[in-house]
């Protein structure tokens, strides 16, 4: 046997170590200061005083409740839209069209999508400019609280348009594991409408498969920082934003408060997840009730139209937002209510590009390296699993999902303290490792299904021809799975590009990426600069996906069976 397979034996424990090590150390590093223990800052005794102090902070409970509500509503709306759309259009040509249109949206970073939305819907935004003054009669923007509204409606909208593509693609991946076309046909032949057929017959097994991804959406929406900074309410802001403020306070005592807050954040996310499980139960109960009363629900056009318009709307919002970002990046003076700038200029780009090279280099290096490591580990893990036939259980899956479900902010604080202690803060390797914690799960999740679906008979033939396992892997399986591997790489790459919090905390201001620069410069509120950076931030993952789609066709131009 050869080195490759022996290496594969080490891969699963190593992967778990990379995923769970930072998680465990990070949580401990957050919990200890929350309980008053941080000797470097003079905290040597355990106390609950910081939690009492937290409870006294004005508006803290409102911030926490807001985060729970955002998590639940965001997930409910985006999941409902995806389920409704799949129910209405599965198997139609519109479905394939939507699939092609939605997939690239996954690569748009959250912050860029949020900026795009803000530029569209703000009182001085694009939509208002398009309808003013001829329709509204306004020659000045109305004094309306749309962005940063206290109910976080615009923030939820920003999250929903980004979660829809994610949940849609996860659902698409789950569908082939069910006999969906046959099942739908069965329902229809019994006289049920499309939506009813889907909800009663297909949804339960599909939901079971995507459940962890849905949990990840709940957790993400309760703890997101960058979208909240851009679109979220101000007085008070959501809990994660307050944590960041305390973390950055020049009074170091605030770090104890921030750590206690990070533990509260853990509780908030947990509460949202528990509430979600409750909603699952209620939903299942309602579905059973409705199913058992025997109605066929044949007239479901309203539901179908609604689901379609939410799906289509989210795509239009993201594309429209990015178009407006691009427009601002080349605009000169652009006063309200002009629909177009009064002059165009490349000045913003000319000024930004030379200064972008540093952050751009870091972005590419960190994303490239973390994706490469994640890909190697994933392939070795899957190879090991292939060999032993173990590791497909729900337990293993949960472990992989864990870094996506535990709020980033709750363990990144601890990880930052740890990295300062070890003196590795602002080091390139620490940053790659921090990104890996989030890149690895996504790479694993996107590669595992095609890998498992690979026809084993190819390997048998190869073995029959006397090929070693490693040689089979290199010569047969990897080439045949090139497309899936490149797609997984593109997913990993775009996850790394989009990372804000780990980069800010571990990079410590010395290692900056396009994303952290975009958020920092956004502080200036200069739309032209935001346009340049957010557009750039979108472009990188887009190129990655373009390569993943285009490269196989080029490499395999002489392999008919591997072309699509």
């Amino acid at each position, binding site marked *: 046997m050869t080195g490759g397979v022996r290496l594969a034996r080490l891969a699963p424990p190593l992967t778990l170590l990379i995923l769970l090590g930072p998680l465990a150390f990070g949580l401990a590093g957050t919990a200890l200061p929350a309980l008053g223990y941080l000797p470097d800052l003079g905290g040597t005794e355990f106390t609950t005083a910081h939690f009492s102090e937290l409870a006294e902070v004005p508006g803290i409970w409102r911030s926490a409740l807001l985060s729970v509500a955002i998590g639940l509503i965001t997930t409910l709306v985006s999941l409902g839209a995806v389920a409704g759309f799949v129910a209405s259009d599965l198997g139609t040509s519109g479905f394939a069209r939507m699939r092609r249109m939605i997939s690239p949206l996954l690569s748009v970073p959250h912050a860029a999508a949020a900026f795009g939305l803000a530029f569209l819907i703000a009182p*001085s935004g694009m939509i208002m400019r398009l309808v003013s003054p001829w329709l509204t009669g306004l020659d000045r923007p109305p*004094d309306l609280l749309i962005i940063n509204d206290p109910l976080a409606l615009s923030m939820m909208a920003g999250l929903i348009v980004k979660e829809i593509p994610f949940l849609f693609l996860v659902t698409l991946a789950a569908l082939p594991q069910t006999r969906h076309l046959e099942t739908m046909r069965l329902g229809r032949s019994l006289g049920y409408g499309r939506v009813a057929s889907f909800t009663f017959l297909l949804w339960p097994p599909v939901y079971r498969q995507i459940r962890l991804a849905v949990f990840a959406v709940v957790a993400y929406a309760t703890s997101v920082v960058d979208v909240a900074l851009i679109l979220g*309410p*101000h*007085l008070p802001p959501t809990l994660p934003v307050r944590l960041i403020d305390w973390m950055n306070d*020049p009074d*170091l005592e605030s770090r104890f408060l921030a750590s206690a807050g990070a533990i509260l954040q853990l509780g908030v996310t947990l509460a949202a997840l528990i509430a979600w499980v409750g909603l699952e139960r209620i939903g299942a109960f309602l579905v059973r009730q409705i199913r058992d009363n025997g109605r066929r629900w044949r007239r479901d056009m309203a539901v179908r139209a609604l689901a379609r318009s939410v799906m289509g709307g989210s795509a239009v919002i993201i594309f429209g937002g990015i178009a407006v970002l691009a427009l601002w990046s080349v605009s000169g003076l652009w006063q309200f209510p002009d629909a177009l700038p009064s002059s165009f200029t490349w000045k913003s780009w000319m000024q930004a590009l030379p200064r972008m090279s540093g952050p751009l280099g870091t972005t590419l290096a960190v994303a490239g390296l973390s994706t490469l490591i994640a890909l190697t580990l994933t392939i070795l893990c899957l190879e090991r699993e292939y060999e032993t036939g173990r590791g497909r259980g729900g337990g293993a899956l949960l472990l992989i999902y864990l870094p996506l479900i535990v709020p980033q902010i709750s363990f990144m604080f601890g990880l930052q303290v740890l990295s300062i202690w070890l003196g590795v803060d602002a080091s390139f390797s620490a940053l790659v490792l921090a990104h890996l914690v989030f890149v690895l799960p996504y790479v694993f999740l996107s590669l595992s299904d095609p890998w498992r679906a690979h026809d084993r008979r190819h390997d048998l033939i190869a073995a029959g021809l006397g090929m070693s396992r490693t040689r089979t892997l290199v010569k047969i399986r990897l080439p045949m799975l090139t497309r899936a591997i490149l797609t997984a790489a593109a997913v990993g790459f775009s996850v790394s590009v989009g990372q804000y919090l780990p980069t800010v905390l571990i990079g410590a201001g010395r290692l900056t990426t396009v994303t952290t620069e975009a958020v920092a410069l956004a502080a200036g509120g200069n739309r032209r600069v935001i346009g340049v950076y957010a557009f750039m931030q979108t472009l990188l993952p887009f190129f990655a996906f373009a390569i993943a789609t285009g490269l196989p066709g080029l490499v395999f131009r002489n392999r008919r069976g591997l072309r699509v």
Partner: protein
Amino acid sequence: MRNAMIKSPILFAGALSAALAFSQTSHAADPDPRDWDAVLQEAKGQTVYFNAWGGSENINLYIDWAGQTLKERFGVTVVHVKLDDTANAVATVLAEKAAGKSEGGSVDLIWINGENFASMKRQDLLMAPDWTTSLPNWAYVDHETKPTILTDFTIPTDGLESPWGGAKMVFFHDTARTPADSVPGSSAELLDWAERNPGRFSYPQPPDFIGSSFLKQVLSETIADPAKLSQKVNAASFAEDAAPLFAYLDRLHPNLWRSGKAYPQNYPDMKQKLADGELDIIFAFNPSEASAGIAAGELPDTVRSFTYTEGTLGNTHFVAIPYNASAKAGALVLANFLISPEAQLRKQDPSVWGDPTVLSMDKLSAEDRAAFEALDLGIATLRPDELGPALDEPHPDWMERIEGEWLKRYGAAN
């Protein structure tokens, strides 16, 4: 080894106060600006991490230019760490001190003044003793007629921070919408104006520096005994002293932009909102801000400036070197370059930045003086004699107390 390094700070730590004794004495290895050739020699090849607020594009570009010039002339690389709040850099240095990292710190030069300087000076986080007055270009600095160069928010600078630019609170309006004769001449008139024009004025949300400065401006005009502002806050009479300020804000807030339920992020954000027509009166600490905005195509050319007849806050902003900086020689070279006539001239040009100089025209060569006089300050910039009197900044303690009180009253307002 690593362990030993981790444990020793634990022994000292908590001991933020005990550490005082150590950092007072300067490090033996600190570069001495009096031997400038040695400083230049040591600086060559160093990388200076300049921690400076990064929210304004023209300032970022200026820092970029300074960095390139330093690279070409002295072989010093400058990396601009773009902060969204200077307090973050103070927190970084403090965290490093708490962790016992008294060398090789991550901040080399920091753009600072007021409460952050007071906090760093108080906690001995700055390179000491006096290095600024030994810089070669200190010879040009106008420390005689500009008192804020030696006293920063009532705190003596003691040569621990080197001046970079002057600042004065100036208001801006668009004459296309707001005629020049209707603009307010005091905080009280501003309140009346806001009541007549609801939703068209706001200020950045404290603790944003400019937002807090607006609170201090109102405080300076409304407090019964302004002399109190040069002292630390008297906790016993604070509520009474600040009562007129908060009565003012209580009346102002319902008439603010978005009825005070959301605030602009900072002054560049207000500038964008003036261009959009969301706000009618904005303010900044840079008298040339409007001219610079017009030059950059961000503001229409109908924008003009005004100040209050009784005066507005004025101060100086500085750069300082943390006690544990990694590239002190490089930081000295940068600080010295920033007060060179060449760099100051470029900084005052509204098409670059438009920030007022800290140099004395009398100390410059005839050639440099002529260059300063030839600067076109821009159509929207008030002449120095039109800027009105400068009010002294209150003691930094006031800012902290008022920010805290503001957050308590309005921080969960919705």
